[in-house]
């Protein structure tokens, strides 16, 4: 157990440039044409790396690090079924109200909004990084926020756009097919940056957290949810969910890419976000409901605020 922690910490803490040799961080070989073009592009950029120095290497590494092409391809394949609440995304639909309740209570408290109002997020600008089909963006928009949703998969954005247009309350959501890094380059800032169930699919979580932090206004909120790296999560999220219950397609998650709460807190600290609250999600198989709890051993969500610079 200690070895896993050590390896994970090393991955999180060691400077970026040195990590490209680590077997953990090299993007796994994929047959997708997107990946091969990506590789050739990054190889071109890698040549002048040593000459120009840290900034260029960080740019190329960050371009490669945020998007993991195999992950992207995985989601593109099942994009159309996002809004079928009995389809492949059923666990996400079941879990969504619980996540939204955590987000609602933490953001209302942080921004001093009235939790009993129907639209408590009126006036807040929120970005949903890795929005997928918009499962989180729509409830946020209904609660009054000005929501921007970004995702790497073009299909997802199309689906999200179409579905959001059906309800006048959600038709104001802006969806873009882009990455967090691109949005950082456009110098956009948001009151709250939310990225749920994305960081475990990203190649360099530390870098991803830096991008998320860069998108947040000072004293703004950053919320990340992911799956813990523990024995129990291996049994539940990988074996039970993927192999026994068929909730998720096999290979959706890689246990080695999960982050423990301590690691997440560390990389967020390094990015300038101090984590204030954390909660876990627990599934009750008898009633089929998810609830918030202190048990962060499988799914957990962290709420942090960006330090004032």
């Amino acid at each position, binding site marked *: 157990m200690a070895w896993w922690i050590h390896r994970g910490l090393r991955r999180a803490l060691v400077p970026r440039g040195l990590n490209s040799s680590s077997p953990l961080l090299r993007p796994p070989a994929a047959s997708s044409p997107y990946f091969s073009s990506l590789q050739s592009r990054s190889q071109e950029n890698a040549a002048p790396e040593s000459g120009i120095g840290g900034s260029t290497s960080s740019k190329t590494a960050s371009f490669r690090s945020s998007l993991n092409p195999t992950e992207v391809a995985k989601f593109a394949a099942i994009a159309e079924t996002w809004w079928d609440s009995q389809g492949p995304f059923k666990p996400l639909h079941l879990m969504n109200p619980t996540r*939204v309740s955590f987000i609602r209570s933490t953001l209302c408290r942080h921004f001093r909004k009235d939790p009993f109002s*129907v639209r408590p997020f009126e006036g807040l600008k929120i970005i949903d990084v890795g929005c997928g089909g918009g499962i989180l963006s729509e409830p946020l928009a209904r609660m009054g926020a000005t929501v921007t949703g970004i995702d790497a998969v073009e299909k997802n954005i199309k689906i999200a756009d179409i579905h959001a247009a059906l309800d*006048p309350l959600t038709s104001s959501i802006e969806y873009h097919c882009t990455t967090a890094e691109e949005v950082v380059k456009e110098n956009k800032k948001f009151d709250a940056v939310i990225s749920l169930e994305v960081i475990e699919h990203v190649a360099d979580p530390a870098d991803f957290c830096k991008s998320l932090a860069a998108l947040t206004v000072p004293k703004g909120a950053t919320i990340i949810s992911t799956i813990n790296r523990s024995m129990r999560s291996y049994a539940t999220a990988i074996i039970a969910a993927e192999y026994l219950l068929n909730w998720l397609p096999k290979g959706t998650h890689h246990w080695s890419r999960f982050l423990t709460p301590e690691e997440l807190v560390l990389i967020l600290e390094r990015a300038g976000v101090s984590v204030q609250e954390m909660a876990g999600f627990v599934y009750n198989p008898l009633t089929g409901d998810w609830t918030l709890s202190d048990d962060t051993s499988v799914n957990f969500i962290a709420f942090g605020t960006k330090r004032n610079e």
Partner: protein
Amino acid sequence: MAAHRCLLRSSVLGSSPAFSAGKRGFSVLTEEPVARLSAGLSASGGSDPTPRRREARNVQWVFLGCPGVGKGTFTSRLSQLLGVPHTATGDLVREELASSGPLSNQLAEIVNQGQLVSDKIIINLLSKSLESGAAKGESGFIHDGFPRTVKQAVCEKNYGVTTNSEPFDVAIIGGGMVGLALASALSSTPFTKHLNIAIVDPNPALGGCSSYYIKNEIPGSRVSTVTPATISFLRDIGAWEHVKHQRHAFFDQMQVWDYTGLGYTRYCARDVGKEYLGCVVENKVLCNSLLLSLQEKDFKKTIIPAKLTSMTVSSRRSSSGVSSGQSNTLDKSRTNNSEETAEPMHLQSLVRLELSDGQHIYSKLVVGADGAKSRVREMAGIKTTGWDYSQSGLICTVEHTGENHCAWQRFLPSGPIALLPIGDNFSNIVWTMSSNEANRHKLMSEDDFVKAVNYALDCGYGPHPQSNFLDNYIGRLPWGSGTTSIKESFQAPPKVINVVSERMAFPLSLMHALEYSSSQFVLIGDAAHAVHPLAGQGVNLGFGDASTLTKVISEGISMGTDFADLALLKRYEKERKAANIPWMAILDGFQKAYSIDFGPINLLRAAALHGAQYIAPLKRNIVSYAMGEWNWPRFT
């Protein structure tokens, strides 16, 4: 009508903010677009919206101003620049005059006399031009000189354009007790009181301002027994206040026995430490109180005095999304829909309801509260299960000597007869018997009927039950103190002297809908379940449905979920089925158990009655369950 439709039909992406508030077409146009004009001009020149949005952007602008200010100049130049048709009502009139159209004679007269052309004609002309434009594939418009009057802008009912084109959030079909209770509950919950509700019921009494029914009137025959759980629900929504000012009767005792004389049971509210077992209220009083509670709240409700004739669901497809040329899969019904009626996108996901007075309304969620023969259930295609009891229930109000604070129920060979206090010296009779018998009793003279009732309640068919030594022994076991009704002996019910209301008979059956909800529809009350009246639970189950549905919708809205989402409605269904099905099973069980006259079965029933009378924990559980205090029997 067509003009209205055309105005609403536009791509959402470009002009959605104006319509996302769901306002009526014309009033929005006068306020928004003039302000947006400058924004629009700068937007077209300045920072660029993403390419996707520019193609899809539609323009719906109105230019207002006094004569000579330059409206015509602007509109013609802008319409060229933006590629959008522009309409000037002056030009339209001149065109119509020049062509020998149907209106040209009318127009000629008006124009020659120097009068303003009437709003009706203007709208007609406008509709025609927009329709012909739409046929050519144009979308969007710039109006020059329209609307000119408030009337035109507001587009009244006189023109046959329905003002109810504003979509509703919830349409409650059926304004009976349960439907009104749902509306009232939605208006009292913080997260749902902003919703826009329509109540569709042909009963004209719903529209007027109501006042209290005076207590001295003869009580009506249709009454309901409300349990304490229902009373606290009604108190929360503010309706119980009004019931208290009208006739109602609490009762704290109940006696149940059968014709064999082998056993009886008496229940008392003090067994479980409460003051009353329930309250008997006339149905019209309940409806009235609910309506009053609804009227006194500041709540967006529209009562539509019409019947529902048909419903169409624009099926919202979850995966590949909506038509208008974007989806690859073929769905003929949808593409036809978008070509022919050209519904605006934000209405496509709503249910369209056609009403008997010719209007149509749109609603996000349709609630069927229209009783056992629910049309909503039929139209939603929800199947039911159940069977007819070959019995009818005969109800009427009777007068008796002395006051009555106890509910009496005696099981006869043909069915139970119940005597429920309504207040003063009046009680309500609910007598279940075979349909032929019910008819006979309905038609017989009043004196004969009074005799029959007394016979059925008192000495007919069998002797009074007595308690024996075994009962006293069991009763004295250490069950714990407090269950005083164990010691009470059998009492004879009051003697009926007079029938004061008309007698009504209804066939009885059991009915249960297999599902309570499907996408965008949900059933509450008798539309979902119908039970035997022998325990007076029917309407209480319905009120429970209304309360749970409100709670589920409120939770959904607090979490930002779409409240017509099927997953949310299924939660309601799960909770209510868990509560309703046990009750239905129990009541059906009772009905079947008491319809057999066979020695060993009679003894079993008698034993059960004795047990229920003398075994204190069992009795307490039965009383609590019947009062609606908990869902599962627990033995504590």
